[in-house]
């Protein structure tokens, strides 16, 4: 009997008779995972994890394993189309790439001429690592408007970390943290930028203590030493309470605080405004538990915080991020082995340079939509999407005439979906690049067939902060699909930007790599390149901030006219901020808990992934369900001030009875009408996008916490209980 070996490539080839295999880099979500793609008769035959990958170590998730089902899906768009009926009529006609790109180019140049380049808005969603090319084409054109998820997803971590400590601090799982706080996140079933579940899991197997901050009882929360079951939207207060304990019990790193922080005294003053009695009242977390967690985190070395997007999709976005960094910082875990490292990326052209932000003229920068209101976001080229919808619908402060959305489905993913839909219905011209005719694409004039990660060459993760770049190698060609990078390189030539682009996109990859004297041809032979690994870099040169210190008191925010110290702000709708509304909408609705297999709106047409989750699910406590006459498996109506949607009930003890938890991202590709059920279960029908409800610095929409009613679908309408 032969010896068993994991990921035995030679034997797989022999046993299954594959023709070849390609090592590549998955991008079904945030990248990071090395994969082995086996090929037979020119088609992908099997996908497996690559054990040589320094990030996921050969493990792989549902999405990566199902990638071939995406690439070869029968409904996939494989050639460019133009719409020949009214919007959302579902009437399309095949056209050539030349016709598609020439039409788009002609529109861009016409709007630029008539209304200025700012009237042309580019956009992407969570992205296929296309952010650098999209910013490049917009900046060279002179449009300051690129609409992304950046206001409430990852962008805030980048912006707030740059102003606090220079760069995004990444958990150093390689050196096994001994205490981990998992804050508003479940890395075991989701993949926040830079992170995979495997290293987290291994750290726990090595004996790390675990603290989980989550209103829901997830499996990590069940396994935690301390579970802090907070009231949704009160993360900042909880963090301030923990900092209060650490400061007043003198559990902080004295040397770090004295030598390397800026603003300690005002920070202590602010922290003292949050004694545990007050924090308990705000957060619903017993003060003893807050104290226990703070002590455990501050006295166990090294310690780290596994964070993610949930704390950012809130009114308190920027302060939430900063407060978590303060916890990392004053405990001495920043840039410490096993703590939270400020990684050096390999010496490549970085995403900012590639994005050509320096080429945007100053007077055009000044025209960035919402730039005067959301000043931190604007500094980093990030927009609040409502500002774009307003510019389309009301033409204020100037009209937006064209959208070019690439891998983005804002009708489902952005707050107040009905307003988004109205804006896309009205916009003069819209081009979309995607895999399928999504509900957003159905409103476009032209839709371009985008390539999946299996169909492109790219320098994977070159915009990330985990310190690696990994080659993504093209394996197959599907129909006429083209990568976003190639299509934009082509389009750029057609709008007169040729001198800033390349003859083909391989030359752009060479450009990214040239500071290392490497070409794409050389890089694609490697597994990865890692930046220099070095700890405590701040001890030599300080932090890359205006004061060269770790800024507890932000001089940047102060200059911008914001409170330089973090604070707790109530969500725009809550039992505390809107008690009258709470009487009518008596449940706190939280949204967006991740489901393995889905990536926001993606993958609901992939059989192997949809099978894992047939229906959109709303979780409700059995006591609350009994009160509302709701039973397990019922379809129910969830209603907010902005609308109603239907989801299916799962009874669960895993949250406070006052809280209801609904899923996000739902549409129904199997419904063949052009709406594809975009409004039926789409939780963003219910969410609020008023600018007053957003984070004041980042413009993050508060889509995670609102007030709702919930009642059986069979009841015709909500009967007010007297």
């Amino acid at each position, binding site marked *: *009997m*032969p*010896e*068993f*070996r*994991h*990921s*035995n490539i030679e*034997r*797989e080839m022999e*046993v299954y008779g594959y023709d070849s295999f390609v090592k590549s880099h998955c991008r079904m979500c945030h990248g990071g995972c090395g994969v082995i793609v086996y090929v037979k008769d020119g*088609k*992908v035959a*099997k*996908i*497996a*994890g690559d*054990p040589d990958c320094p990030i*996921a170590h*050969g*493990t*792989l*998730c*549902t999405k990566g*394993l*199902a990638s*071939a*089902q995406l690439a*070869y899906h*029968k409904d996939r768009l494989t050639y460019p189309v133009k719409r020949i009926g009214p919007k959302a009529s579902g009437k399309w006609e095949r056209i050539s790439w030349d016709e598609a790109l020439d039409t788009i180019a002609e529109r861009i140049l016409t709007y630029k001429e008539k209304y200025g380049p700012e009237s042309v808005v580019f956009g992407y969603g969570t992205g296929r690592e296309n952010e650098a090319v999209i910013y490049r084409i917009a900046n060279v054109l002179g449009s300051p408007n690129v609409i992304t998820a950046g206001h409430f997803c990852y962008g805030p971590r980048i912006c707030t970390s740059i102003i606090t400590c220079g760069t995004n601090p990444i958990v150093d799982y390689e050196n096994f943290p001994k205490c981990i706080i998992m804050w508003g996140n479940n890395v*075991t*079933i989701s993949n926040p930028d830079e992170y*995979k*579940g*495997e290293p987290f*899991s*291994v750290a*726990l*197997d*090595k*004996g790390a203590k675990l603290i989980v901050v989550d209103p829901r*009882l*997830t*499996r*990590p*929360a*069940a*396994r935690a030493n301390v579970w802090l079951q907070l009231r949704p939207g009160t993360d900042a207060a909880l963090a301030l309470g923990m900092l209060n304990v650490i400061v007043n019990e003198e559990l902080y790193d004295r040397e770090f605080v004295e030598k390397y922080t800026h603003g300690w005294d005002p920070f202590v003053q602010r922290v003292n405004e949050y004694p545990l009695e007050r924090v308990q009242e705000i957060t619903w977390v017993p003060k003893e538990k807050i104290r226990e967690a703070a002590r455990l985190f501050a006295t166990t070395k090294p310690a780290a915080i596994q964070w993610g997007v949930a704390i950012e999709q809130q009114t308190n976005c920027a302060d939430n991020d900063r407060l978590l960094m303060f916890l990392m910082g004053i405990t001495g875990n920043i840039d410490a082995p096993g703590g939270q490292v400020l990684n050096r990326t390999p010496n490549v052209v970085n995403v900012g340079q590639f994005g050509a932000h320096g080429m945007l003229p100053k007077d055009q920068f000044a025209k960035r939509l919402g730039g005067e209101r959301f000043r931190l976001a604007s500094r980093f080229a990030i927009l609040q999407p409502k500002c774009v919808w307003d510019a389309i619908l009301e033409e204020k402060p100037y009209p937006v005439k064209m959208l070019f959305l690439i891998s983005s489905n804002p009708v489902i993913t952005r707050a107040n979906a009905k307003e988004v839909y109205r804006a896309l219905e009205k916009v003069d011209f819209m081009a979309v690049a995607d895999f399928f005719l999504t509900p957003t694409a159905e409103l476009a004039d032209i839709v371009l067939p985008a390539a999946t990660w299996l169909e492109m060459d790219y320098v994977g993760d070159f915009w990330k902060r985990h310190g690696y770049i990994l080659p993504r190698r093209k394996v197959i060609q599907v129909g006429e699909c083209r990568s976003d990078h190639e299509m934009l390189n082509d389009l750029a030539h057609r709008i007169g930007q040729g001198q800033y682009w390349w003859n083909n996109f391989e030359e752009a990859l060479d450009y990214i790599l040239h500071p290392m004297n490497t070409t794409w041809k050389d890089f694609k032979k490697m597994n990865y390149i890692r930046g220099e690994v070095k700890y405590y870099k701040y001890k030599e040169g300080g932090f890359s901030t205006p004061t060269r210190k770790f800024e507890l008191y932000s001089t940047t925010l102060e200059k911008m006219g914001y409170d330089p110290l973090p604070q707790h702000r109530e969500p725009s709708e809550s039992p505390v901020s809107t008690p009258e509304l709470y009487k009518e909408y008596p449940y706190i609705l939280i949204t967006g808990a991740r489901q*393995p*297999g889905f990536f926001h709106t993606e993958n609901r047409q992939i*059989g*192997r*992934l949809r*099978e*894992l989750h047939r229906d959109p699910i709303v979780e409700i406590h059995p006591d609350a369900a009994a009160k509302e006459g709701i039973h397990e498996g019922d379809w129910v109506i969830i209603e907010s001030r902005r609308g109603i949607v239907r989801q299916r009930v799962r009874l*669960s*003890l*895993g949250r406070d009875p006052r809280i209801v938890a609904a899923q996000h991202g739902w549409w129904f590709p199997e419904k063949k009408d052009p709406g594809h059920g975009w409004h039926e279960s789409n939780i963003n029908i219910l969410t609020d996008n008023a600018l007053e409800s957003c984070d004041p610095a980042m413009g993050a929409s508060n889509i995670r916490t609102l007030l709702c009613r919930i009642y059986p679908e069979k009841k015709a309408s909500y009967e007010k209980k007297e």
Partner: protein
Amino acid sequence: MSKHAIIIEEFACWGCRACEVACKQEYNSVDADNGIKYLSVWPDGPKLMNGKLDFVWRVNVCKHCDDPPCAQACPVEAITKREDGIVILDYDKCNGCQLCIDECPYHAIRFDEEKKTVTKCNLCHHRVDKGLYPACADNICLAHCIYFGDPAEIEQKILEKRKARGGWGDILPKVITISRG
């Protein structure tokens, strides 16, 4: 003869469900929406367990019992236990009577309406016989909680892991010996 067992340490499972999709990939063509899958992960809880609100993931898959009750229940001897421990269902012999389904204490046998036979995990014996790990156990699991190999060695590994965790992991893998009088 070396022993081949599959043991899943449910305490460590995060419910990522990659093993389900790996199983699907192994047994179905790329364009098959539905189709064969031999294992399924399901949430047990949140519920009160030993007075505490708890929540674990469970994995239903054939445990290849030492003394498999399904084999005893089968009137046509379609289920047999190999010397290496793998309990094999011979699809050609199965007459679809479904007597085995109720006998399985792990709910790991299902009825395939299309083929009119029962269906269960054969531990990827087509791979194992060629020296390859079963699809679900080939290092895809991010929790590293799916073990394949000699049961005694696996038990040792799990005990070591438990020790390293600081004693965590009271939910030991289910005993795989089922004996009937």
